[in-house]
């Protein structure tokens, strides 16, 4: 099965990876992003993630569909956490199952890059002396039609 989900609960990597496994597949590749303690040397106390939830779910579905169209993969699972996250907690897990691991690696790498570019989720870093909403580094997505 494929899925793109948002959750305020802790994410268990194993259970995400397991849910994308069809019986004919031999490998899953999983990207696990988590809360860094230091960003450019500044100590983060915790993070807060906020999403434009219905649009984020739509954009995740688009990524899943495009990945399944462009790569020889079987299933994709994406779970992004929202709300307050402590240091070391998993913020996002992307798991891709494929008959051949090469496609799983390529698709997983593409998915995390696109997720960071297109899915409307924002991160706030909280420091001892303040907080900052992080601006995305990537170019915004091109609009089809418009």
């Amino acid at each position, binding site marked *: 099965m494929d899925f793109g989900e948002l959750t305020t609960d802790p994410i268990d990597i194993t259970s995400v990876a397991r849910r994308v496994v069809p019986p004919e597949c031999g490998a899953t590749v999983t990207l696990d992003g988590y809360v860094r303690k230091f960003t450019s040397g500044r100590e983060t106390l915790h993070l807060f993630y*906020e999403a434009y939830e219905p649009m984020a779910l739509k954009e995740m579905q688009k990524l899943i569909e495009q990945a399944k169209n462009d790569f020889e993969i079987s299933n994709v699972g994406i779970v992004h956490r929202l709300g307050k996250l402590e240091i070391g907690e998993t913020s996002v897990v992307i798991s891709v199952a494929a008959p051949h691991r090469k496609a799983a690696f390529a698709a997983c790498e593409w998915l995390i890059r696109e997720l960071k570019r297109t899915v409307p*989720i924002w991160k706030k870093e909280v420091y001892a002396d303040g907080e900052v909403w992080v601006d995305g580094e990537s170019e915004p997505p091109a609009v089809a039609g418009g």
Partner: protein
Amino acid sequence: MSVRVLFFGATAAAAGKRETYVEVADSSKVAVVTDLVIKHHPNLEGHKLLFSVNQEYAEQDASISDGDELAIFTAVSGG
């Protein structure tokens, strides 16, 4: 027509609110709505803003219909 405008993350912090409503002429373009919103929430200036209409990315010259849901936000930073 009345258009609902949503803010998230940095734009919600800058606007000091999570949503607002603006009155514009029928079939106005996104730019008309966002100019009006920025005028009333000057802290939004200086941010590189992105827009969506009905939960799809939209350019400034897209037209809006009555009942559409517009959102104004900065470059996404999930992951």
